[in-house]
């Protein structure tokens, strides 16, 4: 125990602790190298950023008027995919956890849209035309993400003269595991071992894999294998190259922090759950035989039975009255596999 703690505290942290090197960062991208961690942790981080960082997206659409050429559900789907600003999403609760009946300002943001084409030209309805309701946790959340220089946002639909679109949407908090519209990222690049030293990849080739496959952009960061170097069976990957690409609903660097936070939230939930059961029943009910393979009945009738399941009588192994002992196959007493 002590050794382990020491290792964690001093040497471990300084020499082998996780290291990060950021190589590019802007509003939509963060490229970084995570090193000195196990592949399992790096992959957990990738997975959690991909699927479990909460954002907000339109989830319910009530269409009042739709005389456009597009079907109601088609427009609803398009609305769902519009990225909405998800800053300080922690202040918004999941609708399913909220105390309200269906949805309220603590668990949702309302957006409305009303457009009618009156001119002769085709009217384009954009995300900027969505009107965000008031009573939001903050003034940013729920705003459609607009990145183009004209400030239009995503195109929702086109209307010809006389066509009208009137609807209201309820945007809710969610995660991409449920629907990809809640994804904070459009892509996460994840790679390691650019020279394939570990042989995790089996590269297809005609004559020479080395010549035919393009080099990774990280190839010159790592030492290429020396000529004729034998394969190292003990080698494990330790440098991981991430390229996180956000879509603007969450700042790119916040995606990573939120990802770690989400992972921790998972752990905290489990620690909490375990702690609770520990207090009530000691987590694991009482001492038992080391092999633990005795039947349930064995430990219930305490005071008499041995840990190995009272021989002869009613144990699963002893034959006799159990289902095992009386197979229809005539090999009673043995284990049933003849």
């Amino acid at each position, binding site marked *: 125990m002590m050794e382990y703690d020491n290792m964690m505290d001093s040497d471990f942290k300084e020499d082998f602790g996780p290291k990060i090197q950021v190589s590019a960062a802007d509003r939509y991208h963060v490229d970084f190298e995570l090193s000195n961690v196990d592949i399992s942790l790096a992959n*957990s981080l990738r997975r959690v950023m991909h699927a479990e960082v909460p954002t907000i997206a339109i989830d319910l659409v009530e269409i009042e008027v739709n005389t456009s050429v597009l079907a109601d559900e088609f427009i609803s789907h398009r609305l769902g995919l519009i990225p909405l600003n998800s800053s300080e999403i922690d202040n918004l609760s999941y609708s399913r956890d909220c105390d309200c009946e269906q949805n309220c300002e603590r668990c949702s943001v309302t957006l409305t849209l009303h457009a009618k084409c009156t001119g002769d030209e085709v009217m384009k309805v954009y995300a900027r035309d969505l009107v965000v309701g008031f009573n939001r946790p903050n003034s940013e959340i729920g705003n459609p993400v607009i990145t183009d220089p004209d400030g239009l946002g995503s195109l929702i639909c086109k209307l010809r003269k006389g066509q009208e679109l009137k609807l209201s949407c309820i945007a809710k908090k969610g995660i991409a595991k449920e629907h990809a519209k809640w994804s904070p990222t459009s892509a996460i690049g994840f790679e390691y071992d650019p020279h394939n030293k570990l042989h995790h990849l089996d590269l297809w080739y005609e004559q020479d894999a080395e010549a035919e496959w393009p080099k990774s952009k990280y190839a010159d960061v790592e030492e290429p294998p020396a000529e004729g170097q034998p394969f190292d069976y003990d080698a494990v990957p330790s440098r991981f190259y991430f390229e996180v690409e956000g879509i603007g609903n969450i700042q790119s660097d916040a995606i990573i922090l939120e990802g770690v936070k989400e992972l*921790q939230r998972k752990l905290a939930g489990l620690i909490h759950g375990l702690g609770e059961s520990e207090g009530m029943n000691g987590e694991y009910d009482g001492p038992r035989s080391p092999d633990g393979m005795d039947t349930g009945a064995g430990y219930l009738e305490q005071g008499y039975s041995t840990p190995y399941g009272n021989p002869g009588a009613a144990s699963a192994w002893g034959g006799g009255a159990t289902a095992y002992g009386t197979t229809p196959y005539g090999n009673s007493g043995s284990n049933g596999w003849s």
Partner: protein
Amino acid sequence: MPGRTKTRDDAPEEVDTSMDDAPTSAQQPAEEENGDAMQEDEEEGEEDPFEEEEEPQRVRILPGSSETAASFEFLKEGHTLGNALRYIIMKNPDVEFCAYAIPHPSEDKMNLRIQTYDTTTAAAALAKGLQDLEDLCDVVADEFWTQREKFEATPEQVRKRQEEAERRQAAQAS
């Protein structure tokens, strides 16, 4: 059953077993083995409905577990937690063996097997693993944030940002 030659009719009526009689494996169903403990929990939750929404027990010990060798079943967890947890628990020198599995892809369950030396228990190793992983996450988050801040400060990045802003302004003006 390769050795099976008799038909069902040949077997005497009273000896015949139905699927329900025979356990599917050597292990007893969980309810019998250590179900009491878990059930107690649930009843507790039902008794006072005001004290937090009954969060169903998300971890349970599978039957056939002992003090130092236990299998845990996690509900609603997957590779994201399983693999990282397996790694961190295996790092614990008191742990002899740790592995995880997702027994079936369409069941939202993850099994974790822990076998420890006599110096600790499987449950303690799990608790320690969870805590260690949380600490490790803290370190990663801190490290990321310091590096991100540092990166921002390089003049190259400042210049890049400025250029981008100017480009955007120019595009907006035209």
